[in-house]
């Protein structure tokens, strides 16, 4: 999502021809986020610069061990770059191609995440079985699956899972050699159907993990609900069919009840006249913080299964698009230090929520004030953000981003001038041509001038897992969000700014005495 992601190569040796009359310029070619640079001599000060945005079309040709790139600019100039090396030519061309469009849509989090996984283990592969979205309309084109399972088996497993959401890799935990997977419920139904390929898939997961690893299936419904789901064709994995896997039930609230909880909390937060007792009783009865507690402790449980028990964990509920994503994304935040960086967290949201098919259009159609009650709204994503906020409060130094980013994500999920949260799935986004018709929120956020509000000044990389306290005394109402209407945010912003000043030591910038004498040169 950074421009730097699009840069395939940073440097190459090149010769520039600006026209038939002009002399050729030889030197080192550099690709940066916004410019193409050519510096004739290693320490020359007069650089040749081209704004990438001004490139209108690009053409590449390779011959022998060099290549030529023709850049036709919007100001009608035509430039030719002769570059040494075929690979270098192609890389430069691809970088310019990506960057000149000036957006970050070309970023594919799953592929880049797979690159990371591939460095850690070869038990997983990238499958394009869903290339045309025929297997699973809510999955992205590519998914990460066990290497041992072929595409045909995946197709059959998909038919055995609701909405075609067969088990895919969500996170590979290198430290313990285990994996976190997500899916939807198996379609066992009243007849107790089985699917050999589905069983084989989960078996392959255990086989590819650390030797002797067992598996846990965290079902986000109660045992009762999961059993009842059989009547409507769903259900949950039986122990006999999936050797090595054990099931745990952790009911998480979803759908209408979660939305109601949100509405009631916001209602309570808007009432300035209520007495202390009324407020506490409404805070209690809306159950929002109980949902936060349940979500966090389920995520901790999944994370702990991997880190402490060395087990693989599969998370699913019914459709696997709401509470499932809540658990898998939080578990990664707990375990993975990289997902706590600014870029890593954005990647996590993109990969585990947007591409994983959380139906943002349906879930975030209305917020807490609307009287229109359709049954699809649910603030699952907001619940995720709240849990992240709680983590940030308990580990104030370990997240690179601050409350500002969480608030921004909340706002953009419900209404946004950017296309990132549009539609319900990758398939819809492709149909609507979101990529070409809109701008990406990530590039919007990362270019925003208010970086200070989004970033945490106190961040220090914390390589260990974050185990939050889930006791009710440790959880707080997210005031910055729920009380934003009734509490002026200036004061906390001022404090935030002050912390920034201390961290960057700005005060001393002003009070620093001017050094009158330069250091004596020997």
């Amino acid at each position, binding site marked *: 999502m950074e421009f730097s992601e699009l840069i395939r190569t940073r440097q190459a040796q090149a010769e520039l021809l600006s026209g038939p009359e002009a002399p050729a310029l030889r030197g080192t070619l550099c690709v940066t986020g916004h410019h193409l640079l050519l510096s004739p001599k290693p320490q020359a000060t007069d650089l040749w610069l081209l704004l990438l945005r001004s490139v209108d079309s690009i053409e590449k040709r390779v011959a022998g061990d060099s290549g030529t790139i023709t850049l036709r600019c919007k100001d009608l100039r035509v430039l030719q770059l002769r570059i040494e090396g075929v690979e270098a030519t192609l890389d430069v061309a691809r970088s310019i191609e990506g960057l000149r469009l000036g957006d970050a849509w070309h970023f594919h989090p799953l592929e880049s995440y797979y690159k990371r996984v591939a460095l850690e283990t070869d038990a997983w592969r990238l499958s394009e079985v869903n290339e045309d979205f025929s297997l699973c309309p809510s999955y992205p084109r590519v998914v990460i699956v066990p290497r041992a399972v072929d595409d045909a088996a995946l197709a059959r497993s998909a038919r055995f899972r609701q909405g075609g959401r067969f088990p895919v890799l969500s996170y590979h935990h290198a430290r313990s050699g285990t994996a976190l997977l997500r899916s939807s419920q198996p379609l066992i139904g009243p007849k107790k159907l089985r699917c050999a390929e589905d069983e084989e898939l989960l078996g392959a997961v255990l086989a590819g993990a650390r030797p002797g690893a067992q598996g846990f299936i965290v079902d986000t419904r109660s045992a009762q609900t999961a059993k009842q789901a059989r009547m409507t064709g769903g259900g949950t994995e039986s122990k006999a069919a999936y050797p090595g896997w054990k099931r745990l039930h952790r009911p998480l609230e979803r759908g209408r009840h979660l939305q109601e909880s949100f509405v009631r909390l916001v209602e309570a937060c808007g009432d300035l006249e209520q007495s202390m007792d009324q407020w506490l009783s409404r805070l*209690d009865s809306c159950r929002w913080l109980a949902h936060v507690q349940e979500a966090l402790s389920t995520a901790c449980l999944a994370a*702990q299964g991997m880190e402490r028990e060395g087990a693989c964990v599969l998370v699913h509920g019914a459709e696997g698009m709401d509470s499932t994503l809540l658990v898998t994304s939080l578990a990664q935040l707990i375990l993975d230090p990289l997902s706590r960086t600014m870029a890593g967290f954005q990647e996590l949201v993109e990969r585990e929520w947007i591409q994983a098919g959380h139906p943002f259009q349906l879930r975030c159609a209305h917020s807490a004030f609307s009287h229109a009650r359709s049954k699809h709204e649910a603030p699952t994503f907001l619940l995720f953000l709240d849990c992240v906020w709680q983590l940030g*409060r308990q580990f104030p130094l370990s997240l690179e981003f601050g409350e500002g980013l969480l608030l921004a994500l909340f706002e953009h999920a419900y209404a946004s001038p950017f296309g990132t949260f549009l539609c319900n799935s990758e398939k819809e986004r492709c149909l609507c041509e979101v990529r070409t018709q809109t701008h990406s929120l990530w590039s919007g956020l990362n270019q925003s001038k208010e970086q200070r509000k989004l970033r945490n000044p*106190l961040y220090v990389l914390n390589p260990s897992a974050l185990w939050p306290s889930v006791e009710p005394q440790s959880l707080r109402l997210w005031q910055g969000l729920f009380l934003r209407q009734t509490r002026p945010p200036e004061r906390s912003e001022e404090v935030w700014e002050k912390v920034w000043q201390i961290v960057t030591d700005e005060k001393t910038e002003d009070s620093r005495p001017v050094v009158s004498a330069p250091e004596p040169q*020997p």
Partner: protein
Amino acid sequence: MEHIRTTKVEQVKLLDRFSTSNKSLTGTLYLTATHLLFIDSHQKETWILHHHIASVEKLALTTSGCPLVIQCKNFRIVHFIVPKERDCHDIYNSLLQLSKQAKYEDLYAFSYNPKQNDSERLRGWQLIDLAEEYKRMGVPNSNWQLSDANREYKICETYPRELYVPRIASKPIIVGSSKFRSKGRFPVLSYYHQNKEAAICRCSQPLSGFSARCLEDEHLLQAISKANPANRYMYVVDTRPKLNAMANRAAGKGYENEDNYSNIRFQFVGIENIHVMRSSLQKLLEVNGTKGLSVNDFYSGLESSGWLRHIKAVMDAAIFLAKAIMVENASVLVHCSDGWDRTSQVCSLGSLLLDSYYRTIKGFMVLIEKDWISFGHKFSERCGHLDGDPKEVSPVFTQFLECVWHLTEQFPQAFEFNEAFLLQIHEHIHSCQFGNFLGNCQKEREELKLKEKTHSLWPFLLDDREKYSNPLYSSSSQRFAVLEPNTVSFNFKFWRSMYHQFDRTLHPRESVCNIITKMNEQNKQLEKDMKDLESKISKHKNEEIDGVLTKELLHSVRPESPTLKTSLCYKEQTVLPVNDTLRTIEGSNPVDNRYSEYAEEFSKSKPAVVSLEYGVARMTC
């Protein structure tokens, strides 16, 4: 020492308070004359001062030993299991004796020796000078004067010797008024607002009954309102609920009748009495001491305890005071029944809102000395320093500290001190380690000769100034001259750092305050280094200009700069380890948290159905 029968017990288990799986540490328990000490197998020490012990309980014998539960006044709760019942019984009996002393002379303060000589001790006691403080407020002046009426504690035993009253109030009026007030606590100055020329005064309830009057008292009130040239009327604030005040009338006490006093505006603010507060805190502690507490039980418990409602009531009353002075320019007279609990809370908090001086470290000490210690808040009875009437114990001062904490949360830049400072003060109102909070009034303290026999707390806190400083404090900001807190219900939160002070697993794992303080210090150090280097550079430069710079000197300069550089680098490198130690890793371990108990199903090789039902049961209970 005669109470101690067993000084050392080995193989004692310390149970984790919130663990549902009876996780414990094993170690040795030592009993000394002043402390109970537990050293666990990791050599971590837990010290418990005998005076901090609020209750000791011996539970029914179990297979692993005899459980002993100790609840402390600083909200520490420890649960030991002593292997032999006999040892447990001995410790139990000793602690019962040691935690409840009958005489002041047996309290820790009289034996505590911080290695100060007598002059240091005296200087410590002189650190806070109330005469100086009244001068800072701007009294005596043309309207207010120092009265010598109570110089020998003749009029009121529970007041200090030096009292400020309106200049026009003569001694007979004061004496007359004091006879009409409960415990002789007649209206006196608590805080004077120099710009507004308005005052906060305090007293106890009038002995008005259903119809009694006292002309002197009426004169004194009039004198107070006349001492304020800006406003004709004054407020009389009765901090009790109206019903309680009316009930007092039947006992010959009561409240001012607006008809009898000219130009007063009478107001009830409805803060409950010490008994209600005591049981409210009791309920609160019961709720949050529950193992496996659910979010809903926590909030319904918080609601039914009423604790935050009481805190809000105190805060609202203080805001009323501040507004009367700032907006209406009116003086205020505050009282409750005896004028030493709710009155102290409201007067001190009101002054804190009005005057930024009280929000500094030193100023806050002055405020406590003035409105709490000197005006006779009965610290010894309220904190149960001696074995006395348990009905006199009440967390009135704790509530005051909590109100201040709420203000620090709403105004993070307005206070020079941080949360640790408030917690430390709370620790010492119960510790009996210093003389400040012993006794119930100044007269009693003088009789105990505390200034000769004990030490004052304040110099020790000032020595640790850095530890108690708020790194975000901005002293110059005019915006925080008068605080106007918002008391909408949702601005009040449960003060976890107070009531779960010792339950480390419940707290944030990393401290922002510490890290910012460290950074600030580091910035200062770097700045200093830079100045040093600059002065060195300019010195060398001057030498060069003077032509003194010879080739030899030059050589001596050059090797120097790399070493300086490395020393700087070294300093930068030390930053990280410092941060690392600040990171409280404690609790940042799945084993310390409750979800770990769920996960124990993981390791059990039970049939899936059983663990499943267990899981459901845990989630629903």
